[in-house]
């Protein structure tokens, strides 16, 4: 944390008060902040301390007599566990593919929506709908209404197209069991692309108009303008989209829970779902806590980048 919080330059205040602030006036300033600060510490920080403590116990709720302190053995177990290593890999694959694909698609859509065309406002409204549909509802929609082999929209459309060309029937593909990870990725990309588009569109629209105008006057081609002006300007917005997206997508629970239940086998079990299984199916509290601590450490690594990006945008805003 300390490395990240280069404080933005405090806006210079005219010297209204000349006396040095007393302890009392300092506390008077702090007072409105305290309820929120205390609430956050109690509800978000204490559970993590508890997780840390639980992770050093052998603790299965089905065998309460055998609860004892075991030091770091849960971590050894977690690191050597085949299922868990698989879950780590799945989490990385899932997060990386969802974030990269939705940033690319979001960038494409943002570039189109940055221009004027007939019905641009309506198009933008329709495009953010996937992000607003309740995630569990969206997951069920993809699972049953789109991927279902018998009556899903995907096979149904294939069938209709095949019949159009005189074939008897289209292929019957069981999308979820044949391509479990891509099925999950596509459903999530659909959900997250609008998020990326909104951030990147805001970035495009914050481009200084005079620079673009100057480039046009100087006879720069559209591609040159994009490469040398738009892309460098967009960089921090792309970074912001990537880090915020990673933070949210790493935590994906509802889509895995709904679409694949981590299957077939453990092909799509990501860390949150694996922790859930350890906790509520195997009742191994100690192991679940240890896995939780590992997820937290992983998140801190991503968050370090995230905070740096947010801090740079924040500094820029504060210095305005």
């Amino acid at each position, binding site marked *: 944390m300390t490395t990240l919080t280069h404080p933005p330059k405090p806006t210079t205040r005219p010297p209204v008060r000349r006396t040095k602030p007393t302890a009392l006036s300092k506390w008077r300033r702090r007072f409105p902040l305290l309820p929120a600060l205390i609430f956050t510490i109690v509800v*978000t920080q*204490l559970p993590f301390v508890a997780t840390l403590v639980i992770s050093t116990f052998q603790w299965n709720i089905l065998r309460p007599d055998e609860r004892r302190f075991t030091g770091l053995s849960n971590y050894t177990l977690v690191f050597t566990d085949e299922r868990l290593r698989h879950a780590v890999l799945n989490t990385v694959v899932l997060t990386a593919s969802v974030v990269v694909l939705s940033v690319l698609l979001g960038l494409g859509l943002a570039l189109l929506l940055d221009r004027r065309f007939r019905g641009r406002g309506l198009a*933008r409204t329709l495009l953010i*709908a*996937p992000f607003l549909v309740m995630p569990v509802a969206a997951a069920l*929609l993809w699972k049953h209404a789109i991927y279902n082999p018998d*009556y899903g929209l995907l096979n*149904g459309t294939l069938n209709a197209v095949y019949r159009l060309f005189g074939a008897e029937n289209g292929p019957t593909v069981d999308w979820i069991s044949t391509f479990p990870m891509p099925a999950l990725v596509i459903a999530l990309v659909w959900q997250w692309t609008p998020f990326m588009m909104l951030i990147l569109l805001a970035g495009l629209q914050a481009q200084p108009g005079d620079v673009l105008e100057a480039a046009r006057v100087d006879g720069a081609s559209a591609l040159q303008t994009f490469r040398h002006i738009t892309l460098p300007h967009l960089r921090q917005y792309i970074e912001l989209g990537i880090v915020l997206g990673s933070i949210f997508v790493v935590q994906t629970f509802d889509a895995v829970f709904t679409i694949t239940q981590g299957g077939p086998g453990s092909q799509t079990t990501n860390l949150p779902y694996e922790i859930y299984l350890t906790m509520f199916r195997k009742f191994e509290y100690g192991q679940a806590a240890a896995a939780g601590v590992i*997820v937290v450490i992983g998140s801190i690594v991503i968050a370090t980048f995230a905070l740096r990006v947010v801090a740079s945008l924040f500094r820029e805003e504060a210095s305005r």
Partner: protein
Amino acid sequence: MSAQATATVVRRPRRRKRNDDPGQAPRLSPLWTFVAWLATLAFFAPVAWMVLTAFHQEADAATNPPSLLAPLTLDQFSLLLERDITPYLLNSAMASVFSTLLVLALAVPAAYALSIKPVEKWTDVMFFFLSTKFLPLIAALLPIYMIVKDIGMLDNIWTLVLLYTAMNLPIAVWMMRSFLAEVPKEILEAAEVDGAGLPTVLLRVVAPVAMPGLAATSLICFIFSWNEFMFAVNLTATQASPAPVFLVGFITNEGLFLARLCAAATLVSLPVLIAGFAAQDKLVRGLSLGAVK
């Protein structure tokens, strides 16, 4: 200082961006307009399909090839209401509304102490709030589950209210700070010199600038609480379950009613769709924690 004077000074022109004048944005060629609309419709198709199927009979919903032109009906919605989706929706409404109110009650004073009368090291405090948002909820589930079980608060709507408050508080603090930071310092100081008390300053100077921000913050917090799934499904059972838990019954393929599922999905998504469309302009600022305007 009169209210009119405040209002005129407050609405000073923002830094000029290209999009302040939409006439300057270049036009898309007809070909690219076609591409843009094709992409838009492709993205919207699943939502359209969901809504359309919600108005179909069960027999027309699960056909292959899909029947687009089947007669429309409201049967699925009346069936859902008969099957008691209402308590779930009410639980969702309670959890989201109360947690949003609690978030605002905590975040607004905090944002005040981080912008208008900043405490020393206020940026450190900001980044502390932000860093809590980056910790994965799943890692907190176990201790929260154990504590909540111990004090007999499982399956209780107030448990969700408290957790959603903690979940949204960092976002709200960041958003509200970015709005309160727009209150012009000169006017605040002028009001103070004129001897205006704190209530007057809050009401006459801060409130007019902060109101749109307050609305945007509430909408974002409402959306996130309404859609939350993991705490809802693991900490409630029969009494306090919100809308996402109602949908869990549709996970298995066995005996699935597709039209009813689509009706349920449409119904539970409707409040957020409306809120999101209404707050479109502010959505990006909330999602980026106030970093992007």
